[in-house]
């Protein structure tokens, strides 16, 4: 039993330590990707979620295994948090046949349907109606699972967001909309693209609850998501959660980041690092020692290095698979 920190009932001390390790996995995964991208070893494009580890890990931590998620173009963290293997993810980014999509999808299209991850998405806002459909299945077949739908602040300006939330609201569907507001949609500052103070304020227009949460605080993330998930499971319908966070890196490769200042970046990095914040709590509560924290960090680093090795040693897809899987 955890006494001093406020966490949802299913979150054990062991789980907290796992989550700490998981956030490191997410960070090292994306930092490795960044490095390989710069070296030209990974091609295409990729969007890193460094700095946003707590919103992915915290929200997904309160789910049951049967619950589902939809993800975004910035989805490596969601994918890892929902139980994907980092070696198969890395292999996908290397375009190898051992990857989650046999090298056909790449960073933006990783799905792990068996684990309840209905897929990343290259279309901004594309996953939001899909999450609603997944929730509809749960309701119609009385399956009791909940769908967590991740999207960005930019996506909340797409028609798909408004249409899908309205539909979920009128039908009381078991879905939780999680807007990861990392302050920018590519180069567009949220302040210039959205007139309301909080994206969660828009919930009122659909007659559902809206919740703003510090997306860099994994404990707050767990509590707010837990409440929304419970509500959805009771058949009371969707909630719009807005997690305020920040992406440390540029939007994708070749982003000169002219739209923001170095000071702003440094402020988020040094004062609001989600991993550092969790570590401080775990240590002060006696759930973790400095040495253990370092060990977990090193373990995560090692796992990602192994994932790279696995990816590098994996074969390229044979040309024959080009025309496979277009139809079932």
């Amino acid at each position: 039993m955890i006494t001093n920190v406020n966490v949802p009932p299913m979150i054990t001390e062991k789980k907290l330590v796992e989550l700490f390790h998981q956030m490191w996995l997410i960070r090292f995964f994306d930092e490795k990707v960044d490095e390989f991208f710069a070296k030209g070893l990974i091609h295409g494009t990729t969007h890193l979620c460094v700095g946003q580890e707590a919103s992915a890990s915290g929200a997904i931590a309160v789910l049951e295994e049967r619950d589902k998620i939809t993800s975004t173009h910035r989805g490596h963290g969601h994918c890892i948090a929902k139980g994907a293997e980092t070696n198969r993810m890395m292999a996908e980014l290397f375009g190898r046949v051992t990857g989650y999509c046999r090298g056909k999808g790449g960073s933006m299209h990783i799905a792990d349907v068996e684990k309840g991850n209905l897929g990343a998405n290259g279309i901004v806002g594309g996953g939001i109606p899909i999450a609603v459909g997944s929730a509809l299945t749960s309701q119609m077949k009385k399956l009791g699972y909940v769908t967590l739908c991740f999207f960005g602040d930019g996506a909340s300006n797409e028609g798909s967001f408004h249409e899908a939330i309205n539909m979920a609201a009128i039908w009381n569907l078991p879905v939780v909309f999680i807007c990861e507001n990392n302050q920018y949609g590519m180069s567009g500052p949220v302040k210039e693209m959205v007139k309301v103070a909080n994206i969660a304020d828009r919930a009122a227009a659909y007659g559902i609850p809206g919740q703003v949460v510090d997306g860099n605080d994994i404990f707050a993330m767990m509590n707010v998501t837990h409440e929304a998930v419970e509500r959805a499971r009771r058949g009371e319908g969707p909630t719009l959660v807005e997690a305020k966070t920040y992406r440390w890196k540029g939007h994708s490769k070749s982003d000169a980041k002219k739209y923001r200042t170095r000071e702003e970046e440094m402020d988020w990095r040094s004062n609001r690092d989600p991993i550092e914040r969790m570590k401080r709590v775990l240590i002060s509560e006696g759930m973790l020692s400095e040495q253990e924290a370092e060990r977990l960090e090193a373990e995560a680093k090692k796992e990602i290095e192994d994932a790279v090795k696995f990816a590098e040693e994996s074969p390229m897809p044979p040309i024959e698979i080009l025309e496979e899987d277009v139809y079932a």
Partner: protein
Amino acid sequence: MSTQRELTYLEAVRECMSQEMRVNEDVFIMGEDIGLYGGAFGVTRGMIEEFGNERVRNTPISEAAIAGAAVGAAMTGMRPIVELQFSDFITIATDQIVNQAAKNRYMFGGKGKVPLVLRTPSGSGTGAAAQHSQSLEAWMAHIPGLKVIQPSTGYDAKGLLKAAIDDDNPVIFYEHKLLYRTKGYVPEEPYSLPIGKADIKRQGTDVTIVATAIMVHKALQAAVELEKEGISVEIIDPRTLVPLDIETIIESVKKTGRVVVVHEAVKRGGFGGEIASLIAESEAFDYLDAPIKRLGGKSVPIPYNPVLEKAAIPQERDIIQAVKETVFRR
């Protein structure tokens, strides 16, 4: 004559927009990340500095609203140029383009006009996979009321974009991503190229290749190889799909008697089928010494892995082979 100034395709597009905006207050551009960021491919870089954020209008990520607002602005006296970040996102803007922009004037009995240009990068080759690599020009070409342009060089892009901006109809302007960095001669002064006039990119006598966008360049390379084997290739770039200059194609086929049509878009339902049918329906049919050959992308979404990605669309060697099959057919 001034010295032959070279510009990239991307710079040619930008120069045209800037020149038009300088002389016509009604022209403005609108799209995602086109301000400080300069657009996803850098086409609008520097434009916000010159024209300000009123006329270089950075929008939220809202493709339907961007396209719809362009229709409304065009109907009421402006001449908007929309930059749609990737041509794949036309799917989201489709109602406004297909049901509104294209139909408007006709439905209203010939009243009003919709002078808008929708510029958008298309094509594969960047490893961006299935949702960012499509060539959907045949979709738009199917819709009466839209004009569809697909330039293969910076020179053509600059001249055709001016024509598109001056046109009182909605124009879809496809820019191939891999062409953005290609260089070539582009005059500095504004000029206009007629919409609906094909260009003969290479003269030849044995076989006609009709190619669009990046396939023009692959065909040109293939022609050099084929020349070494004594095969003389004529290459026609339609440049605009709607309206289509079929006469130039027919004349060429009458001269060579053989034709290969090649585009990057999926072959099935692709625009090549339209070109082949028009040739078959014309007097050029009697001059054909071999069946019309079509080359196009495989019927698969564009995969991520670079080897698979290449294999999904026609390459130089495929063009060479197709030409040989056509030429050596008795």
